[in-house]
């Protein structure tokens, strides 16, 4: 460990420090607002420190990490998402009688775990990052302990996550047993030495896919998603939907690119089946759903399926597409859950479709933003989601994954139905008004500004994606992907 290593891990260090500071503050006095501000500041500082690092040369901290453009981009993405979630959290938790402060520690630790994941190049760091994230999430999902659903979601998530971690570990052990290496690059080297595909290796990869697939929430490891989305507090759901999944996508991309996993037809087939099944199951399950959080959960299953299409393209364009899609998806999901958070009251989250009835007339701006988010999820132009979907389709067409591409198109259509169903509900005329805002309006100001900014960003990226694409193009160069 040299000083330079610490410099390059600055964002992570800042997060660690922040978690410790918060713990100390709690020890002195529980003061929600201060801790909230510390959290925001530290997340912002961590993000700012990224610019200090710059992104020109990949910097390896052997054997666990590599700080490169790709990693930095994803750290930035995770930190920003985390920041947004944190900003949304204050109003949400302030209404609840729980102890609010530990939330921020767990939040920061979870962010840390995700950050670790995206820069890890080693099974150990991968695993530890994942577990830091997961263990924090156990606490976060069940954070509102007195809510039965929250606990239920927590235990489901915990058992399933632990089980899938076991699969992941077993898979890693098999890969390790066959290659004698746990560093991605070294694994790649070892693999290239194999004359023929080793079955055990395939099983190893396969079991890792179970672990990865669970975190991504893809079929058939998707079943926790709706329950956890529903049971977890809205900001935590947003966090799971974005940071947790995004981190895993980044990790998966790095791993499969480094080890050239696409040269194995078995893995490609498995991913293809998963992608198609996810798209189909996600969309079809969401069709008749009346719980907005569950709809978003099912839609996230489908969206991860879309991402896998680009992922399966397995080249630079695919990586760019995955990244771009994730950015769009992050913005959109955060915005959508931001609205859900904003509308939630102390009793329960605003998750029933009924809660949104006539929203367009009651709160036009909130409804407009939510509409924009839903349209983005549906992939309608003028939103980032459209460009993302276009990118994914382009990557798929480029690699001539016709089956996947056609399935994607078909599923987008099915998906449309439930997105516009929510939109339709919002413009129903209604007399029933469910407006119970316990706090002073100013408490919602931050949340409001946050989602407004997200909406602006959404449209900006949707209308002028060039800038965002430029950044992604430059930063993902470091990934060792087959060129176009």
């Amino acid at each position, binding site marked *: 460990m040299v000083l330079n290593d610490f410099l390059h891990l600055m964002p992570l260090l800042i997060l660690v420090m922040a978690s410790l500071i918060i713990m100390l503050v709690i020890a002195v006095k529980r003061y929600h607002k201060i801790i909230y501000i510390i959290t925001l500041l530290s997340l912002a500082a961590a993000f700012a420190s990224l610019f200090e690092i710059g992104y020109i040369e990949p910097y390896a901290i052997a054997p666990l990490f590599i700080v490169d453009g790709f990693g930095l981009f994803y750290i930035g993405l995770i930190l920003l998402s985390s920041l947004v979630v944190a900003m949304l959290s204050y109003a949400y938790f302030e209404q609840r009688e729980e102890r609010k402060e530990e939330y921020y520690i767990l939040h920061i630790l979870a962010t840390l775990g995700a950050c670790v994941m995206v820069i890890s190049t080693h099974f150990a760091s991968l695993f530890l990052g994942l577990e830091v994230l997961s263990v924090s999430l156990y606490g976060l999902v069940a954070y509102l302990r007195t809510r039965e659903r929250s606990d239920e979601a927590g235990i489901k998530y915990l*058992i*399933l996550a632990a089980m899938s971690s076991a699969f992941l570990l077993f898979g890693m052990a098999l890969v390790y047993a066959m290659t004698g290496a746990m560093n991605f690059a070294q694994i790649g080297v070892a693999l290239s030495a194999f004359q023929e595909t080793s079955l055990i290796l395939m099983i190893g990869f396969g079991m890792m896919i179970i672990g990865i697939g669970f975190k991504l929430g893809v079929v058939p490891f998707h*079943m926790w998603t*709706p329950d956890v989305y529903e049971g977890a507090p809205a900001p935590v759901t947003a966090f799971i939907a974005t940071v947790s999944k995004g981190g895993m996508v980044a990790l998966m991309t790095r791993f499969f690119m480094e080890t050239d996993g696409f040269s194995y037809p*078995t893995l490609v087939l498995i991913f293809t089946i998963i992608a198609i099944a996810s798209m189909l199951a996600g969309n079809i*399950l969401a*069709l*008749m759903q009346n719980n907005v959080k569950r709809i978003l959960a099912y839609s996230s299953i489908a969206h991860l399926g879309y991402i896998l299409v680009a992922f399966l393209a397995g080249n630079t364009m695919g990586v760019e597409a995955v990244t771009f899609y994730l950015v769009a998806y992050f913005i959109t999901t955060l915005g959508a859950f931001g609205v859900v958070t904003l509308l939630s009251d102390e009793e329960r989250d605003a998750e029933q479709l009924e809660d949104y009835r006539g929203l367009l007339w009651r709160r036009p701006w909130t409804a407009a933003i939510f509409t924009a988010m839903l349209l983005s999820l549906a992939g309608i132009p003028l939103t980032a989601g459209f460009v993302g979907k276009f990118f994914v389709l382009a990557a798929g067409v480029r690699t001539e994954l016709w089956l996947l591409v056609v399935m994607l198109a078909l599923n987008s259509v099915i998906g449309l139905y439930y997105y516009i169903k929510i939109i339709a509900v919002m413009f129903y005329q209604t007399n029933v008004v469910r407006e119970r805002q316990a706090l002073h309006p100013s408490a919602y100001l931050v949340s409001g500004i946050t989602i407004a900014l997200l909406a602006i960003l959404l449209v900006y990226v949707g209308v002028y994606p060039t800038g965002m694409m430029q950044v992604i193009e430059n930063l993902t160069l470091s990934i060792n992907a087959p060129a176009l």
Partner: protein
Amino acid sequence: MENLIWLIPALPLLGATLLILFGLRLPRVLVPVIGAGSVGISAVLTILLGIQFLSDGAAMYEQQVWQWFSVAGLSPGISFHVDALTLVFIFVITFVGFLIHLYSAEFMAEDADYSRFFASMNLFVCAMLVLVMADNLVLLYLGWEGVGLCSFLLIGFWYRELANGYAARKAFIITRVGDTAMAFALFLLFQHFGTLNIQEILTQAPQTWSVGSQTAVLVALLLVGGAVGKSAQLPLQTWLPDAMAGPSPVSALIHAATMVTAGVYLISRMYVLFELAPTAQMVVAFIGAATLLIAGFTALTQNDLKRVLAYSTISQIGYMFLALGVGAWSAAVFHFMIHAFFKALLFLGAGAVIMALHHEHDMFKMGGLRHKMPVVFWTFLIGSASLAAVPLISAGFYSKDQILWLGLAGERGSVILYIAALLGAFVTSIYTFRMVFITFFGEEKTHISHMPGFWMKMPLVVLAILSVIGGFIELPHNFAHFTLFTNYLEPVLPVIVIDEGLSTIEWIFQIVAAVVALAGIYIAYLFYLKKPELVQNVENSRFAMAMHRFWYSGWGFDALYDAVFVQPYVYLSKLNRNDAIDLIYTGFANLTQWLNSLFARTQTGMLRTYMLGVLVGALLIVTISLLL
């Protein structure tokens, strides 16, 4: 003068436009002034034009008002072509039209929609003029459809009665069927000649097609399709009787004098094609023959005064078709003109009667009007005489006799056609005088409420005079050989070649025709005036009853078409009202919903199920790895 040709159709159009735009606000007095006046000026212009035409001996006048459109060689203009044939038609349209307008001024005076009536009538005159004056088939088609529209509007003029609406719609749709055939002819002509200019086609056709060439026959037959639609010939004749729902002047103008003879115009205008297609021409002749018989027998059984006249119109146009079919072009046109005079007269007379009797159409509720309405009676009698072709004194005799004769002696004539025509003539005189006797003789059955005034009587008288003297411009060969009309038309329509062998015994046939007509009158006299019980006797027989019913229904064509075309279409349409194709998509939506309920069942909420999912996934992955 020839620069003002465009004014002839434009004036009625102007009248129509004025009436449409300002009709509701104009004083009622002005409405007929505009309506009849515009047609009247057109008539004057026509006569002036005719005088000039005859005096300067020009073959034709042409005038392009503007280029309509021009696409890839198809460049029809709004341009007019006036020659001898056209002039006959223009004359009839404007002059008879003018008389009928005058008549209407009084006849329709009580109607609330006075201006709408005149607007439609004016529009009709304009469209009809465009039809006959068009120098290209597209413009002709415009007029062709335009008159259809006006016919529709005027049949349904009294729109409150739904039956009138039905009749109007029926007329429009059935004529449209014919129009469609005509449209095909246009397509074919354009395909082969690259133009739709009538004169160009007429000059190019003989160079391109040999006599009897298949395409020529096809084109000619398609044109016949159009003609039979408009002219209510077999098999598209069924609309005309129903069209009597319109006011009587309308029946007189549109459904007797002008529009229904558009088919005659079309065929004679395109005669070159028919000469190239003998088969088609024969078809025309036989259609004519069949129609005149069927319509004649139907007329025999009708009770409605106007329906009798309607069937008689169909029948008379059948004669014209027969003439066209045997190549007696000028005879057909001649009969058209004479028919226009006397049929308009009959309709107007019938209108006067009907109006006098509270809009009573049933002949059997009339009677004894001879003394009450002498002017109407006498003019009606003259018209009837002309229709029944009473020898020597009626114009109808000369025109019809010519057709009878040429049907036998013409180069394409035949005995069958002759016998059919003769039989038709016999039936014609029976039903004509049946009508006269029932309506004007016997005892009065309905009280007369409204006596026709000057404006109604004057056209009757004028037309009656024409119905008498009109015939003298064309006399049979052996009868002073005065062929003014044929000579006049000769530059446009060729003179028929006559079987020389027969021409020596022409007088026999003339006598036969005269006898047949008179015999018909006598039978009518016997049955309907002298011994009405004879009718009872005949009607008591079962066979006669059946025949009566059959003829009364117009030989069952309506029922046939209803069963074959209308009902299946309506049934199919009603059956599929909610669009069967929609079911595919509904089915797809239901499928996804069903899948949803299926998938949703996997989301049990139970941890064990979820873990089972993971296990299944693991199993799948391992198995795939194992199998590949």
